[in-house]
């Protein structure tokens, strides 16, 4: 960070008004200025101006941040906090301030596992086997704490048909309204294959031909959040090729069913200036796209009491709050019940919860209290990290609440079988 950098210029948008404080999970948990968005921006600015050193304290605070970006939603000055955080974390890595086993392991997992579909598939299968053999308790004792926590957070491993690649092309049902590409996603494919299938079904029902382009990569969001921007850029480059430079005529939209992936793709213009702008402009969250284009197929009745919990990277990073609610409300019989703090972070934040299990649990607790008070039959949210965290929390409390992606309910309303229902 220096006074000529783009990062420094970005920090100057902050006028230190503090309106972000009450929306920051780590400030609310600690009460500390240093652990608030305003504090972190001030630290970045202080480092650039040479008022403080880029040291372990700065590194700790920047990694304590969940990256939920709730601060961006309330920032009157329009500070692009998420982008600042990614840049600052990258500089921490460059400065060698991310040392120790945890970060090394994280980087290894992100680069060599998450971004490699075959390896990830094998790994998830292995976990499935471990669980089937009831070895998971043993594993919990043997594995490093962070890995053990991660294992515990994973939902039941879906059967392999659901973990197979999505069909590369599915025709529209009825009159064709357009042609969209779907980002399959790394975690989504392995753990939430049913969501992918539901997404395709709902899209085709509503007149869209769905292509799942060859050669697409992980979106790179988790890598960027961890400060591995260079790897994120390489992934983005592959996606630019897969979604905008092959496959004939341009797509009407590139649809994602994961809020984190959608946010990363929409902002990939910042990683690859000029190169990725086209992809960013095409990207739509599934709920956003359906809301924008309108449902042509009438959903059937679902007598359900449903809560919708905003994924941070949908509501704060993409500014989408109403579209999923409108979609759910379009299902006859479905009662959408509000719960307090719906747009507050659930404490998952990608890989953050693995490094901060206690604070994550406290943040999740507040969320679960609100959910419990609303007592829905189904709790919906549109991001794999949130789905995992919420499911683990609901299960730990022994609540009889199903956790699902909104698109799954829509698919059910269209009368589709629900193979992956948990």
């Amino acid at each position, binding site marked *: 960070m220096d006074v000529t950098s783009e990062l420094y210029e970005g920090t100057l948008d902050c006028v230190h008004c503090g309106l972000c404080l009450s929306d920051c999970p780590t400030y609310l948990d600690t009460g500390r*200025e240093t652990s608030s968005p305003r504090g972190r921006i001030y630290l970045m600015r202080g480092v650039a101006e040479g008022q403080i050193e880029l040291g372990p304290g700065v590194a700790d605070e920047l990694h304590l941040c969940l990256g939920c970006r709730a601060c961006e939603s309330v920032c009157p000055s329009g500070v692009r906090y998420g982008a600042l955080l990614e840049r600052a974390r990258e500089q921490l890595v460059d400065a060698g301030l991310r040392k120790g086993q945890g970060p090394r392991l994280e980087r290894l997992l992100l680069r060599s596992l998450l971004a490699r579909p075959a390896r990830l598939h094998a790994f998830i299968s292995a976990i499935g086997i471990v669980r089937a053999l009831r070895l998971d308790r043993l594993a919990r004792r043997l594995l490093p704490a962070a890995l053990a926590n991660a294992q515990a957070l994973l939902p039941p491993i879906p059967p392999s048909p659901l973990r197979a690649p999505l069909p590369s092309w599915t025709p529209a049902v009825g009159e064709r309204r357009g042609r969209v590409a779907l980002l399959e996603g790394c975690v989504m494919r392995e753990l939430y294959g049913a969501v992918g299938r539901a997404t395709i079904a709902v899209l085709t029902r509503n007149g869209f031909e769905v292509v799942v382009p060859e050669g697409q990569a992980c979106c790179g969001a988790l890598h960027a959040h961890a400060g591995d921007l260079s790897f994120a850029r390489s992934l983005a480059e592959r996606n630019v090729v897969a979604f905008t430079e092959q496959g004939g005529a341009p797509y009407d939209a590139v649809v994602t069913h994961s809020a984190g992936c959608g946010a990363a793709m929409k902002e990939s213009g910042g990683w690859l200036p000029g190169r990725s702008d086209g992809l960013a402009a095409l990207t739509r969250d599934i709920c956003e796209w359906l809301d924008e284009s309108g449902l042509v197929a009438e959903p059937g009745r679902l007598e359900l009491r449903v809560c919708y919990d905003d994924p941070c990277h949908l509501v704060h990073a993409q500014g989408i709050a109403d579209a999923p609610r409108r979609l759910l409300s379009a299902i006859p019989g479905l009662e959408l019940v509000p719960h307090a703090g719906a747009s507050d972070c659930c404490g998952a934040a990608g890989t953050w919860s693995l490094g901060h299990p206690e604070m994550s649990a406290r943040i999740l607790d507040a969320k679960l209290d609100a959910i419990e008070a609303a007592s829905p039959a189904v709790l919906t949210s549109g991001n794999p990290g949130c789905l995992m965290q919420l499911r683990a929390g609901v299960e730990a409390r022994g609540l009889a609440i199903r956790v699902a992606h909104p698109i799954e309910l829509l698919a059910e309303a269209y009368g589709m079988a629900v193979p992956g229902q948990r």
Partner: protein
Amino acid sequence: MPGVRPPQEAPTSRSDAELIAGLRRIVGNEHCLTRPEDLFAYGCDALTLDAQRPAAIVLPESTEQVASAVALCAYLQRPFVPRGAGTGLSGGAHPTPGAVVISLTRMRRILSIDADDRIAIVQPGVVNADLSAAVAHHGLFYAPDPSSQQVCTIGGNVAENSGGPHTLKYGTTTDHVIALEIVLPSGDVVRVGSDTGFAAGYDLTGVAVGSEGTLGIVTEVTVRLSPIPEAVETLLAIFDDVPSACRLVGRIIESGMVPASLEVIDRRTIEAVEASVYRAGLPQDAGAVLIIELDGAACELQAQLERVRAFAYEEGVRGLEVARDDAERARFWRARKGAFGALGRLAPDLYVHDAVVPRTKLPEILEKICEIGDRHRLRLSNVFHAGDGNLHPNISFDRRDPDELARVIEAGREILELCVAAGGVLTGEHGVGNEKRDYMGLVFDDVDLDAMRRLRDVWNPDGLCNPDKIMPTTRPCMESNPKARGYDAVPID
């Protein structure tokens, strides 16, 4: 006088080690912060000029911990500075070098709510808006609503006697606080006031509210809650210029109505708001927008609304919108409450002034303020509480440019002198802090200030509690003292 001073290094010595060890014993390691990053982050509040570094920050969770920390500071003769959310705009929570910051953000429990008697007892770290949210189901709210109410704390509001857009009708914090628990600078704990609203003896509650944390640290606040009005009407009146908006304000007030609020934002502020997340769909070519909020019994509001409407057309309003529902009301207010932050987009720094003038002098004062801004080649915009004459001239600037910074400070001085000469004062709701203390001589003479010192010295004899706030460091300037010139009947041209 505010300005960029090189940060002074905190004195590190054996006494620092002793202090920090003691503080850690009181609040626990986790809640005593001493990393360089922490000392830097707590160097200022929302006024970033003139930041300094404290020796440590403690985040106590109880009155006992506050009292012990204060007693330790008193014993070691170490200055200490209370802090809420740090949203103050006058540097009231700025530490002096080597001071201990006592942050109340972890004392954020609402201790009791009595809906029948309409009072609540809260810890100082409770966020203003959270209190209103917590009592809403009783049909009650906490009336003082500073623009930062989503984040600022009740304790900070008490220290600054915070106002907000609705003070015109509901008054400021002092009108809603009836009792306090205070840790005196000696470490002793006292209770002042009473939950009946009256306490025999000197009005120590009234004196403590607005004392900017210099008389002690408030650890418990008993507040009055107000009934949510039966009906609310919010209007957005669009004018070609600020004087027309001010004329409508005059018509409304002189007709005997007491609206809940009368807020004006000028053209430059409109532009900034519309470019921010708080955009409210205001016409960008308007010269001024006036938000009028009427509240009260449903039966009388319609007639008032019609009167306002008639006045507005007589004063040449360009457009008049009445909020149809709460969502639209929220949209009007979003523009007003997000204005400061939105102005932050215009430049790296924002200087928010807070002078007050007699309401009837607003148009001419505003014109002169704009002239001052133009003369100093500054980007100056105005947001103000038109009903009570409370001005917020905002200057967008870049403090890294020393020449511009000097012009900002000079313009600020001229604005304050102008307002005082018109019978006004330095601050209506932000406090004097360390920002305006050297301007106190514009309003008060030596004898007036001496009376204030008498009060402060009784509570804070060693000056350890929030030093360098309110009282000036320099001798007041007699030339500019209105009393020396024949009191305050100084006409402006």
